[in-house]
């Protein structure tokens, strides 16, 4: 029995990547709920959106379509959506980095560069879409078709490389340590995407080396995006002994006393009074023990006296 190594690696890493992304979306939305400030909420939302679009574009490869035109749409539309989300999120991240820089330096002339990149990408996408519909499959694999495809993919790699550089430089300049880490990790994640586009263009599709490079860079990139989300806020760990339901009796009793005397919201504030009960139980045990000990110490009637 032969094992399809390429297919196994492909499917296994896809499952792993989708798992990381689903967890990332869940946690990004959790972080979003915890924030009041607009900048951080917005970053959490964008991260969740980016991960969702990555999942859609990955799973679109598994949609069984026979019509080449529909196949082109199913493959190309999620890719274009992904590119737009990456560029929009990257653009916002660079702008936030510039805003949080003490000197508000225009990182890599980003205020002008963003428009150049946007126009170039829109033009190349329109060209590729038009080519996809106008050119026949034979023409698409001809010199003109390859040129059009290369124009799109190398242009995309160039745009992403500039964005990556702007993110890394902008992150270094940001005064906000939290944002700095998050933006830097996003920049590094995009650098793996650039590396993937460039490296795989020299490899034959669906060979082992291609799959290893493609999925390996993908895994690293996705993990970096996940870490970027998680570094949006320093996270603490709840110590089990200190959660509200089992906190020491001093506070629980004190809280109970003040709340019952001052606020009608006492039950809501207190929660289940387990600690008070446990204190009472401990007190009861102590009283029983004292009684038992005192009974043991009590002088017994002397047998001689009774005689």
């Amino acid at each position: 029995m032969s094992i399809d190594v390429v297919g196994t690696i492909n499917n296994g890493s896809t499952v792993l990547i989708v798992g990381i992304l689903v967890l990332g979306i869940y946690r990004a939305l959790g972080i979003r709920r915890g924030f009041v400030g607009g900048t951080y909420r917005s970053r959490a939302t964008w991260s969740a959106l980016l991960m969702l679009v990555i999942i859609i574009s990955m799973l679109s490869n598994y949609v069984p379509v026979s019509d080449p035109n529909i196949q082109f749409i199913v493959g190309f539309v999620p890719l274009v959506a992904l590119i737009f989300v990456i560029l929009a999120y990257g653009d916002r991240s660079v702008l936030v980095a510039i805003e949080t820089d003490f000197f508000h330096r225009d990182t890599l002339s980003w205020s002008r560069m963003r428009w150049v990149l946007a126009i170039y990408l829109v033009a190349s996408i329109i060209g590729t879409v038009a080519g996809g519909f106008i050119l026949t499959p034979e023409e698409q694999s001809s010199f003109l078709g390859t040129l059009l495809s290369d124009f799109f993919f190398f242009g995309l790699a160039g745009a992403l490389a500039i964005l990556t550089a702007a993110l890394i430089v902008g992150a270094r300049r940001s005064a906000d340590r939290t944002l700095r880490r998050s933006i830097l990790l996003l920049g590094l994640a995009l650098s793996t995407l650039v590396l993937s586009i460039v490296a795989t263009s020299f490899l034959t599709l669906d060979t082992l080396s291609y799959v290893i490079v493609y999925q390996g860079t993908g895994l690293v990139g996705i993990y970096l995006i996940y870490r970027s989300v998680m570094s949006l806020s320093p996270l603490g760990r709840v110590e089990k002994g200190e959660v509200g339901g089992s906190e020491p009796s001093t506070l629980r009793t004190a809280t109970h006393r003040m709340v019952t005397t001052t606020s009608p919201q006492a039950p809501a504030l207190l929660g289940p009074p387990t600690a008070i009960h446990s204190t009472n139980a401990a007190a009861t045990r102590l009283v029983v023990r004292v009684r038992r000990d005192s009974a043991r110490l009590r002088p017994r009637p002397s047998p001689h006296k009774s005689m």
Partner: protein
Amino acid sequence: MVSTGVSSLDNLLGSDGYPDRSAILVVGPPGIGKEALGYWFVRSGLIQGDYCLYVTHRPVTDVLRDMKGSGISTERVPEWIASSGSSVKCDLRDATSISFNTKEAVKRNVGRRVRVATDVLSPLLVLNPLESMYNYWSQLVAELKQQDSVLFALAEDGMHPPNVLTTMEQLFDGVIEMRLYEEGLAITPLFRVKKMLGLPPLHGYFRFSVTSTGMEVVPHVH
């Protein structure tokens, strides 16, 4: 005691809020809602007729917009020391003038209860060496506490190395921590009173929510 402006927090801290003549530090990551706690503190002071001073590195218009977003009416406003929109300017490069202007404003209101809320601690810590900032804040806190005043300061978690915040916490009578916590896969915003003058150590976490109608603090059950 000085009301925090949030009734559930007042109850938690021993019926009436922050202790008199105290300095309170609220530590939390950016965007978690520390400022809202400061706004409610100032609002409560304005309602009670206290003299309220807000020292900020931001423009007054930005703070007012945030206040409105937190559901606080801006009909009554505190006196400002701000980067713009106030008669007295807050220049982060001149820490001495910030301290001087704050103390002068407090001195002008002798006999009244004073509430000072500020968000300049973190920027000043970023721009100045820790040693000089420790001396600066210890002097400011000591002078403000000589009068009937409560200082409420905000510090950004994640913007400073851990030893910096630990050092600054020594200067304050009360330290409240707000941050996101991991509980298994879920992430929850929780609130913890690390220390408070006149109260035994308060263990346990509390869930908090900031809405346009106010702030609510309830014990967190795991």
